[in-house]
């Protein structure tokens, strides 16, 4: 009787199992690298209807974040400013700039400027801006150095583990209340000082970040 299979076929089952493990490893690595917000969202910098530069307004001029984002310390949403907010200055500065035509039209008609939303959490996430801002969590923790961005770019992943990292160790992020919108601020004594003072703020202000599901989901 002639041989149907060569002798090397004896090793084939083992080789297939090993290959499946390799393939599984590649798939796991690929999914965790490419299917998470660190890849899908970080770096998102849509083209906006008006080329508004935060680097100029917040960085160079030093306008406080709250000058435009009025609702941020009063309620859940950090509101996008009305065209009137722009016109507070641009009724005198760069009056005829074609770049501002959309803003002027919005101011006259009342129709909103069609800004493109950059940071977007799923609808089952109930994030409250004021709860963070009024307890010393700076804008920079989630939005990065917006005061250095000409075009707003998604800087942090805003994934659930990103939230939980901070909710488990709030002392690493909680800072003095008058430094919340100072995006460049770092504790003068570095990390050790931040942890020491952060722990003090967490205690004094009774900061208890929820880690239960219903803290953020409902």
């Amino acid at each position, binding site marked *: 009787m002639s041989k149907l299979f060569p002798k090397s076929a004896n090793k084939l089952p083992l080789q297939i199992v090993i290959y499946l493990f390799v393939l599984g490893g590649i798939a796991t690595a690929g999914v965790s690298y490419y299917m998470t917000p660190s890849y899908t969202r*970080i770096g998102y910098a849509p083209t906006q209807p008006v080329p508004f530069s935060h680097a100029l307004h917040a960085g160079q*001029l*030093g306008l406080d974040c709250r000058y435009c984002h009025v609702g941020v310390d009063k309620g859940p949403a950090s509101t*996008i400013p009305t065209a*009137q907010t722009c016109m507070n*200055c641009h009724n005198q500065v760069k009056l005829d700039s074609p770049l501002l035509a959309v803003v002027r039209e919005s101011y006259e008609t009342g129709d909103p400027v069609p800004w493109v939303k950059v940071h977007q959490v799923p609808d089952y996430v109930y994030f409250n801006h004021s709860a963070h801002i009024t307890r010393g969590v700076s804008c920079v923790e989630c939005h990065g150095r917006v005061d250095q961005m000409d075009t707003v770019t998604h800087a942090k992943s805003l994934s659930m583990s990103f939230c939980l990292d901070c909710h488990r160790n709030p002392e690493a992020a909680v800072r003095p209340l008058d430094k919340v919108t100072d995006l460049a601020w770092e504790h003068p004594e570095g990390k050790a000082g931040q942890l020491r003072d952060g722990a003090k703020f967490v205690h004094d202000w009774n900061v208890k970040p929820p880690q239960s599901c219903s803290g953020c989901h409902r």
Partner: protein
Amino acid sequence: MRNVYLVTALAVVLLVSVLGLRGTVFTAPPMDVFPEWAFPGMKRQSKYKPQASSKLFADGRADRPLPAGVVAANYGPLGRPLQSDSHLLSGKLADGSFARGFPESIEVNRQFLEQGRERYSIYCAPCHGALGDGNGITKSYGMGATPTYHDERLREIAEGEILNTILHGKGNMLSYADKLTIEESWAVIAYVRALQLAQHASPADVPAAHKPSLGIK
């Protein structure tokens, strides 16, 4: 078997070169890993979030503007019911003249002034300057003449008229009623008064205990 590994390696190289690395800046809408058509109603639920768009209304806005003549129920100091204190809400007395002094429901204390300083620094200082002298940062970018608070007219102005200016604007200054609540507006007014006092004080105004340390006899 070697060929299988070779093909796998090629596939990985191809995938990485197509998808790129993390942190690359891009303008196209982000990839949706769990798209709505496959998992409907979770990430994008049928509800409106603040400042969202709506297909239901002709102007496309989910936030509805108030119909003409309607007064919002929470108008006035945050969390308080509608009230009719015209001194507090409009800075005017019953006869239409501007009220002097602070309304009864407002207590001017240290904490109130600190609140005023914070709000002033955010909303007023860009034009009026940290000292209230009209030399804010916007001046060097072409903003017209912002008046100083430290002249006779503005030192004598009624508090109610300052509130009226905050609420309705004046000249090139637009309304700040959407940025400051009524209470915050009064806090800013108190802080403006403090600024005026600071810039128009004489040695006689310094408490005796502090005179030696400032070198005042």
